[in-house]
C-alpha cells in the first residue's frame, strides 16, 4: 500500500517539528527517514501511524484520506526503539496479542492463532523462545519479537522507530541484514527512522534525508551519497572537506565545476582527495600531520598552508605504494568536488 504525505505540519509549542512536508512512499518499498535528532523524523513516523495528529496537511493511504483514522483502524505495524514488549506476557502471548483483541466475529480460533504465531516466530527465527518472558531475552531477540508482534496483525504498513538504536554495533549489523531479507520475504511497505547514515544506506531502497523539519533530499542510497542535493546532505552522509574558494581562488575549478563567483564552497569527500609528491597544476600544498591506519583504510590528517585542516583517505594498497610519513610535504588534488554557493552553507 502506498502512503502519500501532503504538506504535513506539526508544532510543539514554538518548536517546528515538521514544516509542510510532502512525501510519497511507494507500495512495497523500504524507505529510510534519516536525519539528526530533532529533525522531525520520528514525529513524521508517528503521524503516519496515527499516534500523533498533524496540525495541518493530509495522509493518504492508497489514495484514501486516513488523516482522521484512529490508530486502531489504520492497520499499521509499529516497532518501538525500546521494544515496548508486554513484560507480563510470554513471547507467544505478545505475538498473539493483536489477534486476541480482535472483535469476536473476526477473531481467529485458538488453533489458528497458535498456527499463525508459530509461523511468525519461525519467520523471525525465534520459535524456540515461545514460552519465555521478555525479561529473559537479549536486546536483539526482543526487537525481533517486537517485529513479529507487529506483523501478526498483517499490517498494510510497517513503521519502525530507530529499531536498532538500543543495540550494540555487532547485533545492529546482523539485524540490518536480517531486516533487509525479511522485507524481501514479506514485502510490506515499510518506513524506518534512523540517525545512522550507514544503516539507512545499507538497508533502504530509498533514503529521505531530513533536517529541521524539512526534507533535504529523497533518493536511492547511491543518489544521496554520490550527488547530495544540499550541503547538509553532503555533510550528514559521511566525512567531507570544505574548501572556500575565496581563500584559495581558482581551486574550486579543479573539480571541473563552474564556480558561482567568489563566495563558493567546494565539498570534497576524503576518499576523493588525491595525493602527489610533486607539484602539478591546480594542486594545493599541504603538510601531513598524522597518519592513522584504521582497518581497511589509511586516514591522513593534513593542513593547508593557511592552517585549514584537510582529511584524506587512502586504501591500504594505495598507501603501501607511497608510504607517506607524518611531517612530509605533499600536493593535494580533488578527483571530484561539489560546489555550493557560500550563503547556502550551514
Amino acid at each position, binding site marked *: 500500500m502506498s502512503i502519500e504525505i501532503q504538506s504535513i505540519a506539526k508544532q510543539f509549542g514554538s518548536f517546528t517539528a515538521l514544516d509542510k512536508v510532502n512525501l510519497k512512499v511507494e507500495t512495497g518499498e523500504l524507505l529510510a527517514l534519516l536525519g539528526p535528532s530533532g529533525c522531525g523524523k520520528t514525529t513524521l513516523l508517528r503521524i503516519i501511524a496515527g499516534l500523533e495528529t498533524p496540525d495541518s496537511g493530509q495522509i493518504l493511504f492508497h489514495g484514501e484520506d486516513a488523516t482522521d483514522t484512529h*490508530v486502531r483502524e489504520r492497520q499499521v505495524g*509499529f516497532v518501538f526503539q525500546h521494544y515496548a514488549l508486554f513484560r507480563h506476557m510470554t513471547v507467544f502471548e505478545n505475538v498473539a496479542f493483536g489477534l486476541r483483541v*480482535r472483535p469476536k466475529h473476526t477473531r481467529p480460533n485458538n488453533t489458528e492463532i497458535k498456527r499463525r504465531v508459530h509461523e511468525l516466530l519461525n519467520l523471525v527465527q525465534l520459535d524456540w523462545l515461545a514460552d519465555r518472558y521478555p525479561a529473559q531475552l537479549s536486546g536483539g531477540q526482543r526487537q525481533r519479537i517486537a517485529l513479529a*508482534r507487529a506483523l501478526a*496483525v498483517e499490517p498494510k504498513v510497517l513503521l519502525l522507530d530507530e529499531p536498532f538504536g538500543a543495540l550494540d554495533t555487532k547485533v545492529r549489523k546482523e539485524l540490518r541484514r536480517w531486516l533487509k531479507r525479511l522485507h524481501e520475504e514479506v514485502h510490506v511497505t515499510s518506513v524506518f527512522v534512523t540517525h545512522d547514515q550507514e544503516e539507512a544506506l545499507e538497508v533502504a531502497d530509498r533514503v529521505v534525508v531530513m533536517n529541521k523539519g524539512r526534507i533535504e533530499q529523497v533518493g536511492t542510497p547511491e543518489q544521496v551519497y554520490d550527488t547530495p542535493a544540499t550541503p547538509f546532505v553532503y555533510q550528514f552522509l559521511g566525512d567531507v572537506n570544505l574548501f572556500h574558494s575565496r581563500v584559495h581562488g581558482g581551486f574550486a575549478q579543479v573539480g571541473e565545476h563552474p564556480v558561482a563567483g567568489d563566495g563558493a564552497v567546494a565539498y570534497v569527500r576524503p576518499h576523493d582527495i588525491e595525493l602527489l609528491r610533486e607539484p602539478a597544476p591546480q594542486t594545493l600544498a599541504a603538510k601531513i600531520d598524522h597518519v592513522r591506519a584504521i582497518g581497511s583504510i589509511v586516514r591522513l590528517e593534513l593542513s593547508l598552508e593557511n592552517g585549514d585542516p584537510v582529511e584524506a583517505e587512502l586504501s591500504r594498497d594505495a598507501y603501501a605504494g607511497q608510504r607517506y610519513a607524518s611531517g612530509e610535504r605533499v600536493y593535494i588534488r580533488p578527483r571530484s568536488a561539489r560546489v555550493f554557493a557560500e550563503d547556502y552553507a550551514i
Partner: protein
Amino acid sequence: MRFKQPSVLPGFNLAFGYTIVYLSLLVLIPLSALVIKTTSLSLAEFWQVVSSERVVAAYQLTFGASLIAAVINLFAGLLVAWVLVRYSFPGKRIVDALVDLPFALPTAVAGIALTTLYAPNGLIGEQLAKLGIQVAFKPLGVVVALTFIGLPFVVRTVQPVLQDLEAELEEAAACLGANRWQTFCKIIFPAALPALLTGFTLAFARAIGEYGSVIFIAGNIPLESEIVPLLIIGKLEQYDYAGATAIATVMLLISFVLILAINLIQWWHARRHGMRK
C-alpha cells in the same frame, strides 16, 4: 547457595548485623514476650479463652471487615491513583495531599468524625437510615472506618507504578488494534498488579491492628460489633494479662500466615514473569 553473595558493596556484615539487632529489639523480642506470657496458661485454659463465643465473633469481625475494607481499597485506590496520574485538573495537588490525610490524622479524630457523619442522626447516616441502612454501631461501620484508614496505602503504592508505565506500551497495544478497555485489562492492570497486591497487604495489615478509629463508630456490642483489639484492651483493664496475650497470640499467628501467603503469591507472580531469577 552461599549465605553471603560476593558483592562490591561494602558493609554487608555491619548492615546485616544492624538489621538483625534492630528487628529483634523492635519486633522479635516484644512478640516473643507475648508468646511467653501466653504460656503461663495451660493448653486447656488457652483454648477456653480463644474459643469463647465472644472472642471468635471478634476474630471473625476483625478479619472479615479488614478483608472487605482492603478489597474496597484495592479498587478505590487504583481509581484514585489512576485519576491522579492520568488527568490534570485544577486542585490536583490538593486532592493528592488529601490522600495522605488518613495517615496523619489521629485515629480517634477520624473515628469521631466518621461516627458523627454516619450516626443515625448524622449527615450521611440520616439519608441512609431512610433507605433502612444503619452504618454506625454496626459491622458496616467497622468496614467504613477500616476503608478510610487503608486508602493511602493502595494509592501510594500504585501511583508510582502507573507513573512509570511507559506510554509506548499503550501505544503498542493501540497499534495492534486493542481498544481502551482491552488495553486497561490486559496491559495496565497486570502491570499494576504487584503494586496493588502490596498496597492490599499493607491496607489489610493496618486494618487488622486498627483500634482508635473503629471503637467510636463500632458501638462495641459484644458478638456483633466488637473488634479483637478492643477485647484485648478489655482483658488488660481487668488485669487478665494472660488472657489478653492469648487472644493477641492467635491474632498474631493468623495475621502472620495471611501476610506470608500474600507475599508468597507476589513472589510466585514475580518469578513466573521472569522479573526475578
